[in-house]
């Protein structure tokens, strides 16, 4: 079980995986956007996307959980 967390405050610009997807280590899960900067947030482990906790356009704070990988 790994929780993918937001490393900065911003809005969810794009979700690049779907629940149930098999992903590799370091694969981008979402792309956050804040102050004209798009920051891809990657999963630290390989696995299956169990849950995506945000929707495109949502605002997240630093440290918020974006997705759960198992």
């Amino acid at each position, binding site marked *: 079980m790994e929780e993918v967390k937001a490393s*900065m405050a911003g809005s969810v610009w*794009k979700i690049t995986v779907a629940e149930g997807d098999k992903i590799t280590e370091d694969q981008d899960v979402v792309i956050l956007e804040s*102050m004209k900067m*798009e920051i891809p947030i990657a999963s630290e482990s390989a696995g299956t996307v169990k849950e995506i906790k945000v929707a495109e356009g949502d605002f997240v704070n630093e440290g918020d959980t974006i997705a759960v990988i198992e």
Partner: protein
Amino acid sequence: MIKKILIANRGEIAARIIRTCKKLSIQTVAVYSEADQKAPFVEMADESFLLGPPRVNESYLNVDKIISIAKKTKVDAIHPGYGFLSENGQFVEKCDTAGIIFIGPKGDVMEKMGSKIEARNAMKAAGVPVVPGTDGVVASVDDALVIAQEIGYPIMLKASAGGGGIGMQVVQSDEELSKAFESNSKRAQSFFGDGSMFMEKKLENARHIEIQLLADKHGNAIHLFERDCSIQRRNQKVVEEAPSHFLSSETREKMGKAATDAVKAIGYTNAGTIEFLVDMDENFYFLEMNTRIQVEHPVTEEITGLDIVEEQINIANGRALTFKQDDLLIDGHSIEVRIYAEDPVTFFPSPGHITTFKAPSGENVRNELAVTSDFDVTPFYDPMIGKLIVKADTRDQAISAMKSALSEYQVDGIKTNIPMLREIMNMEAFTEARATTAFVNEHYLPMMKKKTN
């Protein structure tokens, strides 16, 4: 004669443009988004109009709304500042159609210089050296590998449609190139809807040095010397200075001539900047052209005594430049730092509420500000909240002045890069003018790592 200007921009640059308009007794119209209702520039203008919601597509990039406000307020001209619509050829066309003067170059010239590949070819034709690389899009990994043999590693892989460092990566070998080509192309496709890539030789130990130009509609073009902007993070500038301590007067003259020849060759008018990479042996290579005023223009104003916004308005009015190249002299040394709302080590944005904001003051200190105390920095726009500029007789004195100004700077409530700027002013690589574009990665970040361990 331009008597009234709409400023199609926000923040510090909007305030900066309004200041010159006031000096010239020109009426000003500000446009702003819901996120910027309390911003200083909105207050400063003679009239202000709400564009719409914070998102740029609904506000600062909303061409039709901006043109309709310009018509309604009967302005003579629009100043686009930097970013947003400043390099948008279609916007220039719409201004032309509406009979409004766009303060900048002609639309077709702008479009040409805006395309990375077309600009390279235009520069080559004008006899300006370009960074060795591809003159078109690289179709496949196989092609990339063949080109890599010709150029030689290290290579900078760039997304054609890229910006803000997305889709950019330095590669050192065939293996790295194959991997990076796929992933960067995919990333550029998902970000910009265009996955086309091109390749450039990565110049090692190079400095980013740019030439500020002015060109009128009578065929006169002059340069206002150079700015050294080698200190960058995420491919965005952090510290800029004029003149460059590294350039010999011979190279300065050569670069100035290459840049002025180029703008004459392409029929460029108004203020513009040609960016070069300069290697250790003072060979210089064209990087790109910015067809607008730049963030770091104040350092050039400080050493030349000119007001570049005023010159832009004069040129837009059809006036000939009132001075020649030989009339211009470099007076002293100027340094600018950009104040970013961001973490000083990770460089991640830090939007939030500024409780206290205190900028330094004093002789030879200039502030360009987008914020005040008790002010919300929203996540919708660029993280730059201000610029601090100092001017002195020598570079060493300018560094001292910058140090003391930075020690007075106080921003509470959000993270800023001020701690980073204070560190840089004390680092030998900077004080001895040895900084190249690798400065942040090779000097600043390792030092911070050491400090925290």
